[in-house]
């Protein structure tokens, strides 16, 4: 049926197709308006953003004041900048992503290529871990973190994201490694490689596409996460950017140009990943879609 499977030159413009195109263009515009508002407002000055007659117009020039204000803050108005919080997000997201991907890869390898008693216990536990609504266990979790002296620290939050990332990363890798021919693994085994040797010599080098998918998935989720961050990290100087951004937007002073600049700053890493590597982004989404 679909038009893309028929050769292009036979596609004719008939009323139905015109209708479809009109509808799609309309929806695309509707979907883009908020993004347009975001980018345009962030490039305006405070006076410009207040000027109604210029609502739809692009900014008069490249005004980077809003970005400067969002980055460094406005101390005389008591507004904190986002620079430190952006760094915090990097400190949080990078180790958490790397650790949970590594652990997921190892687990996935062992669950898919080794036969042992107990795999039947472990897998349902993983499923349970994947589907449980984490926000329900917030209080006991913060208490556990406090008990191991990680309460209120970025390391505590890293640990949380690593732990809660294990089920889904394990699952993605397990399914990925299931496609790797077992002959390869056996050959290495016959050559005398041990359990870890097989992983390093056979599976790990083949894992790049798997890692790309998992890393993008984890990075985006952790970077954008809010509830755990706001619950675990109370001190403004250790909070990641999502929390700081919400505080900035929630303050009494409604400098929308600055707030939009801050929102854009916070969204740049994930937006860039999406635009550059959208294909992998979507593959991760499909892999994780059962999670909910």
């Amino acid at each position: 049926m679909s038009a893309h499977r028929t050769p292009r030159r036979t596609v004719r413009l008939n009323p139905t197709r015109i209708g479809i195109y009109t509808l799609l263009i309309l929806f695309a515009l509707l979907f883009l308006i908020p993004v347009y508002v975001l980018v345009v407002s962030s490039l305006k000055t405070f006076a410009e953003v207040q000027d109604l007659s210029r609502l739809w117009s692009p900014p008069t020039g490249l005004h980077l004041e809003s970005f400067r204000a969002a980055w460094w803050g406005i101390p005389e108005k008591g507004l904190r900048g986002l620079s430190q919080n952006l760094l915090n997000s990097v400190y949080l997201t990078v180790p958490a992503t790397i650790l949970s991907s590594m652990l997921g890869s190892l687990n996935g390898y062992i669950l898919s290529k080794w036969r042992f008693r107990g795999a039947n216990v472990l897998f349902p536990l993983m499923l349970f871990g994947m589907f449980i609504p984490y926000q329900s266990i917030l209080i006991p979790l913060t208490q556990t973190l406090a008990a191991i002296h990680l309460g209120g620290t970025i390391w505590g939050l890293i640990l949380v994201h690593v732990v809660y990332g294990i089920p889904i990363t394990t699952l993605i890798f397990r399914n990925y490694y299931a496609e790797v021919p077992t002959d390869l693994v056996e050959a290495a085994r016959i050559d005398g490689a041990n359990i870890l040797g097989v992983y390093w010599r056979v599976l790990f080098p083949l894992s790049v596409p798997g890692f790309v998918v998992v890393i993008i998935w984890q990075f985006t989720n952790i970077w954008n996460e809010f509830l755990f961050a706001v619950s675990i990290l109370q001190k403004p100087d250790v909070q990641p950017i999502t929390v700081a951004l919400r505080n900035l937007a929630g303050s009494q002073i409604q400098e929308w140009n600055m707030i939009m600049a801050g929102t854009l700053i916070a969204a740049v890493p994930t937006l860039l990943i999406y635009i550059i590597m959208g294909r992998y982004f979507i593959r991760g989404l499909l892999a994780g879609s059962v999670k909910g």
Partner: protein
Amino acid sequence: MVPKIMKQGRFTPWFYLLGALVIMTVFIVYPTIRTFTLSLRDKTGANWASADCVRGQPCWGIFENYRYALTDKEMLEALRNNALWILLTVPGTVGAGLMFAVLTDRVRYERIAKTIVFLPMAISFVGASIIWKFIYYLEAGARSQIGLLNAIIVALGGEPVAWLTNPKWIVNNISLWIVWIWLWAGFCMTILSAALKGVPTEILEASRVDGASEWQVFWRIMLPMILPTVTVVATTMVINVLKVFDIVFVMTNGLNGTEVIANRMFKFIVTNQGRSMAIAVLLIALIIPVMIINIRRFREQEAMR
């Protein structure tokens, strides 16, 4: 089947898995159990929940927090809202996703269209909520409105509307639902579109040759064939909606009739642990039936591997 040479001693693989197992027990299994026990305790967890009972008022003993979670006015509002969220945004997101999947499948610029619809997923929910807060913004008492929506209304000669602080609670909720659909339609589209591509072209061509209209092809052939995927997407969205928190917290903080379960739970985290955990248990209880459907389907998929 994993061959014999891959069979290990009883302990070696366990040694590698032990780490994962230990942290999952400490951070997932134990806190889950603890959530249940804390829900029967009072504000600080020091006594049984019955200690929070007030003389002369209804009391459910150690289930006092559940009395709050199931009968309090604020909680009833939250439960009503979550029910409305499910009834309206699940068909909204799945329907919009299905429509985009079907439409984009027929045009040349499929990838661009999809990239645009999916774009909101790349922005954090906090960021998205802030952008929409600006779009809905109402400049109190002023004629000059800088919030996009009210600016348009005023320009057309209308009166500005309080989109998020309206005395009519349903208006505030509709504003939130629109944001939710904007955020999630792309997710639904992506998964449904992958399913649509799996429908064999021959079947569709054959029915067209037999004179079926596009409309009939969609309802009688495409939809029934991708129904399992539609169910997965719908159940996933039900779970997401039950957990909805970020956008409510950032945009309205549950005020003006927009309260939801997860936000109630968050409000009590510091002030009343017992209540917060009872609400958490309620949330788990609501999610479990949907979760079972998803797990069952997931296992079927796994079995087919």
